[in-house]
């Protein structure tokens, strides 16, 4: 969201009316909406949550700020009863919450809007909302009453959606509204939103923020989980910062600023990666007027794109606008329905993962668990996966396990991968270590073209810096790099030129610093000026 909107929102939110809140607040007679005491949760060696305690007051908006992997989602899953904490308790309105029971959380008035929607696509909006709200053993579903209440709630909180529509036909924004309606229908008094804006356009984000304001006015308490500083500043009364599973800071929103929060979040002064200017070289990969069928969001619609040597092209955009299919296309797992792909000026006809690899395209996929690795195979078997047919790793159809193992050991050493042995199943590695291996596998042959799709998603700060360094090194070496990321900060930091993707189309490229964040935001929304009426 652009700064102007933030200002507008702050004004609408009436921050000026309650200028400052002082912490710690002396206990009032009524119990807080939520009280978390000493919550800890371990997954194997990883401390996802470490003795976290805080309170959420009635009618308050808390922002839970932290990087990917800081433990925010784990904490909320404990709160909502998906996980059971190893230690600690949760109280809602003064009453202890039974652990590990989503039903108890719902009954206590906690509603949760998950990052990945929990909707059944084959059912209607109304059925999704009614699910679990009536006794399971009723012989007949009460539909009319449900429908009336949903319509009423929609009207009250500006959550327009057709109750009779099948969920599979809804847009992402509408689905999120259904999620909120689900909570309101159950008379939630505490609403938890997990990264709610990741899938929204700036205009939709703005509408969401207005809804949240209406909810607070009705007395709801809200926990807003995000890693985006500007949003946190815009919506919250108070900010809690989580880092590596620990609560490292608590600030009244009005008395802090983005710089301080950023420092708290990453634990040190944010060190921008050193980006030295490099002279772009020859075009290495070109898409010419390429279209595709939809896949995980929009399909490509007449897209042209050229990647040149020694340059990082950053692709920004709201999730679901065609980034997934563009990444799949360059990786070779999708083919265009029309248009041409050429590499180093040569038109490529047979496009496939093998062809992409043969043409020197290195791929870092978005989903390292589902696509980037084969979890139940060993580290060795995974690192040779892209080149097992080369003479280095196999001859006459027989694999050379010795050379394969040596390669795995080399990558483990070079990329500082923490892993018990090359024979361990890769599933057992942490996300960061797995990503290092995928990076190593892709970058080892010194590729000319690199596709990095969400390369730092879910990684800790150290791993993120490592990935960035590797990409910049490859750039210095003269590789052409396409960086696709939902993290605008990342795109802005690394890219030599930025392209915005929206509804399957690409904007014209802009050089580093050429477009303002506001302009980029408008491009991300698909067209400019649409939300001009909100900018006061």
């Amino acid at each position, binding site marked *: 969201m652009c700064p102007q909107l933030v200002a507008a929102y702050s004004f609408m939110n009436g921050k000026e009316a309650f200028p400052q809140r002082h912490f710690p607040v002396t206990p009032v007679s009524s119990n807080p909406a939520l009280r978390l005491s000493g919550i800890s949760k371990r997954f194997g060696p990883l401390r996802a949550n470490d003795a976290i305690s805080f309170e959420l007051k009635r009618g308050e908006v808390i922002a839970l700020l932290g990087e990917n992997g800081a433990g925010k989602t784990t904490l909320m899953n404990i709160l909502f009863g998906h996980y059971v904490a190893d230690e600690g308790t949760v109280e809602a309105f003064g009453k202890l919450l039974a652990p590990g029971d989503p039903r108890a959380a719902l009954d206590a008035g906690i509603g949760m809007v998950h990052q990945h929607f929990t909707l059944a696509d084959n059912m209607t909006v109304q059925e999704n909302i*009614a699910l679990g709200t009536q006794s399971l053993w009723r012989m007949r579903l009460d539909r009319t009453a449900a429908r009336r209440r949903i319509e009423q709630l929609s009207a009250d909180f500006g959550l327009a959606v057709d109750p009779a529509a099948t969920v599979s036909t809804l847009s992402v924004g509408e689905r999120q509204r259904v999620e909120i309606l689900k909570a309101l229908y159950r008379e939630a008094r505490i609403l938890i939103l997990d990264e709610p804006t990741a899938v929204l356009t700036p205009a939709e984000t703005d509408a969401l923020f207005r809804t949240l304001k209406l909810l607070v006015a009705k007395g709801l308490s809200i926990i807003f989980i995000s890693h985006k500083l500007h949003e946190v500043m815009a919506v919250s009364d108070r900010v809690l910062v989580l880092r590596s599973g620990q609560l490292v800071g608590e600030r009244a929103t009005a008395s802090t600023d983005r710089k301080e929060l950023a420092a708290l979040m990453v634990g040190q002064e944010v060190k921008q990666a050193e980006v030295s200017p490099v002279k772009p070289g020859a075009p290495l990969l070109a898409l010419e007027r390429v279209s595709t069928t939809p896949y995980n969001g929009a399909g490509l619609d007449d897209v042209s794109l050229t990647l040149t040597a020694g340059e990082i092209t950053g692709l920004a955009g709201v999730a679901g606008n065609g980034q997934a299919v563009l990444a799949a296309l360059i990786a070779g797992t999708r083919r265009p329905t029309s248009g041409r792909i050429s590499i180093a000026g040569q038109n490529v006809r047979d496009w496939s993962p093998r062809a992409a690899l043969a043409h020197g395209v290195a791929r870092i996929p978005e989903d390292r668990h589902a696509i980037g690795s084969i979890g139940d195979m060993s580290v060795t078997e995974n690192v040779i996966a892209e080149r097992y047919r080369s003479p280095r790793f196999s001859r006459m159809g027989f694999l050379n396990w010795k050379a394969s193992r040596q390669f795995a050991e080399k990558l483990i050493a070079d990329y500082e991968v923490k892993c018990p042995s090359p024979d361990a199943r890769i599933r057992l590695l942490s996300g960061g270590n797995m990503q290092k291996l995928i990076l190593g596998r892709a970058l080892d042959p010194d590729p000319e073209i690199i596709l990095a799709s969400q390369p730092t998603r879910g990684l800790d700060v150290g791993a993120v810096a490592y990935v960035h360094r590797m990409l910049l090194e490859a750039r210095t070496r003269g590789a052409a790099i396409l960086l696709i990321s939902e993290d605008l900060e990342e795109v802005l930091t690394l890219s030599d030129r930025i392209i915005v993707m929206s509804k399957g189309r690409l904007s014209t490229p802009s050089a580093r610093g050429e477009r303002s964040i506001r302009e980029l935001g408008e491009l991300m929304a698909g067209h400019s000026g649409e939300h001009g009426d909100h900018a006061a």
Partner: protein
Amino acid sequence: MDALEILFTASFWVAAIRIASPLIFATMGELICERAGVLNLGIEGIMTAGAFAGWFTVYSGGDLWAGVLVAALVGALFGLLHATLTVPLGLSQHVVGIGITLLATSLTYFTYRLVLPEVTSPPKIEPFQPLPIPGLSRIPVVGEALFTQTPLTYLAFVSVAAVAWILYRTPVGLAVRAAGENPSAVEAQGISVTGIRMGAVAVGSALMGVGGAFLTISAFNSFFFQMINGRGWICIALVVFGSWRPGKALVGAILFAAFDAYQVRLQQISGGIVPYQVFLMMPYALSILALILVARRATYPKALMIPYQKGER
């Protein structure tokens, strides 16, 4: 008689509906399991066990309806075993399903030999008799076909209506359908996915048990080895053919049964020119063909065969 004339005789359709009945029960059973996200390949063995359990209850002096009940209970028990392994433990539904079929079948044969060690020809019981519905059974062809059946056939039709009602009109049906599509939707609304799935598999398997029992206490009057003879696998094909909808699956089952009844009659009038095995193959071949025709555009329950762990999304 002419090959086409057969299609217009009431006796042909009476037979078709009778042949369809066990398939209807078992298809509804499989449909419930799959709608909740669990493929139940135990169906063949569960039908075998149900066939024996129903028959043996009656053989040892029980009421016919007691036989139905026992068959359902036995089916539900095997269903619970299947569900315990595939739902909370998330084991391969293929392997466990085959395992349940092998186990249920071998346990049935073992029990049969244990209780009747000496018999060579299977003992008979007094099965369900046709119960014409007054008035309706007088309607030519259609009425005769539908309303001069045994009570258990009527129950098969009732089961389709009940399954349809439950899936689309009751809260628990919503939960079942959601569990097969996106289990996290169920958990987020405070309902246990494990509970819903296990319940669905148990209930579905009970219906499979009754489907098996239909053969021994309504269609025939004794139990013999290998009497299910692939009917369970055909029901799995029927669920796909019916796009996981009870009404369509019912139509599929009747079409299939009509074809089966027809091939038997064709066999009789073909005069032995074509080997009888060719006719017997046709139902199986037809099932494969039906799968090929619908597979492309079938909309599977999205979470079918995908185990769910709490808190996963």
